[in-house]
Structures are given as structure tokens and as C-alpha cells.
């Protein structure tokens, strides 16, 4: 089953990469970009489970243990049955 995990840096945490890209866009004349954040998306395929909710639970456990740092990030899981 295919799963997409969107990992978003919490709004309170600075994003130096996003800030740099926003400045580059402004330098290139792209005006009006009020905010820009660069985040991480993980695409995976999970085997051995047919129930989307069970897959979601397994991936949530992966997020809690390794894939995200709760100090920095929130996450959203989308299961594609």
C-alpha cells in the first residue's frame, strides 16, 4: 500500500532554506511571496497489511520513533489504498 507522509516544520521553528529561497525569488522580481516554507515528503510502500487504518497506525509509529523530531516537526499521513 502506498503511503505519503508530509513532514512540516512547526511554524515556531525557523526555516533558513525557505527564507533564502524567498529572498532569491524577490531578487528575481517575483513579488508578493508573503511566506515560503520548504518541507519534507516521504513516499513509501508498505507490505503485509490490507487495512488502511492499520497501515496508518504502523506509519504513525514510524513517524513517532524516527521519521520526525517532535521538537521541530508535525506530520500528516495519507494512505492510498
Amino acid at each position, binding site marked *: 500500500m502506498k503511503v505519503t507522509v508530509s513532514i512540516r516544520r*512547526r511554524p*515556531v*521553528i*525557523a526555516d*533558513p*532554506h525557505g527564507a*533564502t529561497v524567498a529572498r532569491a525569488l524577490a531578487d528575481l522580481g517575483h513579488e508578493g511571496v508573503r511566506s515560503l516554507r520548504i518541507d519534507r515528503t516521504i513516499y513509501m510502500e508498505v507490505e503485509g497489511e490490507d487495512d488502511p487504518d492499520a497501515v496508518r497506525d504502523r506509519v504513525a509509529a514510524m513517524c513517532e520513533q*524516527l*521519521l520526525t*523530531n517532535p*521538537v*521541530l516537526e508535525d506530520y500528516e499521513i495519507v494512505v492510498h489504498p
Partner: protein
Amino acid sequence: MVFPGSNCEHDVVHALQLLGADAEIVWHRETDLAGIDAVVLPGGFAHGDALRTGAIARFSPVMETVKAMAESGAPVLGICNGFQILCEAGLLSGALIANRDLAFICRMVEVEVIDTNTVLTAAATVGQRLRIPLNSYEGNWVDPSETGRHVIRYTDDPNGSQHQAAAVANSAGNVVGIMPHPERATEALLGSEDGRVLLEGFLGSVSANV
């Protein structure tokens, strides 16, 4: 401790031996640290910084033992990547993100000791200024919980670190992470000997704790 991708372990051992310590390198797969009184997690790029700095190294078998030692009050020091690993492991508050200006900073910096109640700063004095090399890309410490103790600060602001923190301790003061490299400032030949007072304090804390 040495993880796959650590690269400062020999510098640390050399510096500690120079100061009279009995130091050895231990592979991250070890779990038995019997006879070892204190731990240093060295700098480098454990697991190539995959996912986040320190994210994978924190699960190395040795880290369970390091955690137990930290909880029992043993001195634990993380330098650079070691600092990042201690944050990921939850032994220190906060996390380290990319430097504010996205520059890999590799130069001598000046830092000021602001809290001497830790194993790393025990031999220093409050307000003491030290010149120590900084060598990192993810040296920008953030701590939204505001629970970490920043114990050494940069006198300028090289990387955007919260409170200009260069070193952070746990509440007990026995676990400390520092971003600049004191082990690279232990001999005049290296351009500074200011790191000695920190490592001497650390070794003194080891003796006091045994």
C-alpha cells in the same frame, strides 16, 4: 563513542590523553561500558546526517547504556554531531537546525561561559571568554520549550542559535552538548589552548563522580 561517520574521535582521545586521561574509542554497537566512567560523543556526520543530524545514531545499541549512565549522573559530553545526537536522544532539550545564513561555518569563534554548574564548565569562571573552533552546518540550536540550560554563549551570533547558545546542559548539569570543538583548542600549535579548561573540568567531574 564512534558511530559510522564520526570523524573527531581521534582528536578527542588525543586531547583527553594529553590532559592525563585514560581514554579509548568504543564502537557504537557496544552495550557493555563496564569500567568506563564518562562518555564523549564526538563530532562528525553519523550515518551521513540522513533524515536529520543524529536521528539514526540515537538508536545505536550503545545509546541505551549512555542513557543509563546519564541518568545515574555520569558525565556525558556531546561535541558538534555528538551534541546533535544527545538532542535527538532526548538527553538534552531542543534540536539543531541549519545555520541561519546556510553557511558551513569553519572558523575560530569566541564564546563566553555563563554557567559553571556543569561537568564541562566546572573549572571555568563565569564570564570567562574562550577561543574555540566552530565547524558545523547544523549548529543553530532551537528550543521552543525553553527548558534547556544554555551554559556557554557565542559573543557574536554566528549561526542564529537561540540565546546565542554554544553549549547546553541538562538540569543536573552532567549531560552537556557543545557545538564548537574544545578538543581542537588544546595546544598552542592549534592556535588556541582555551579548550583545555573545559576538558579539564570534564575530567575533574569524572574523578568527582567516581
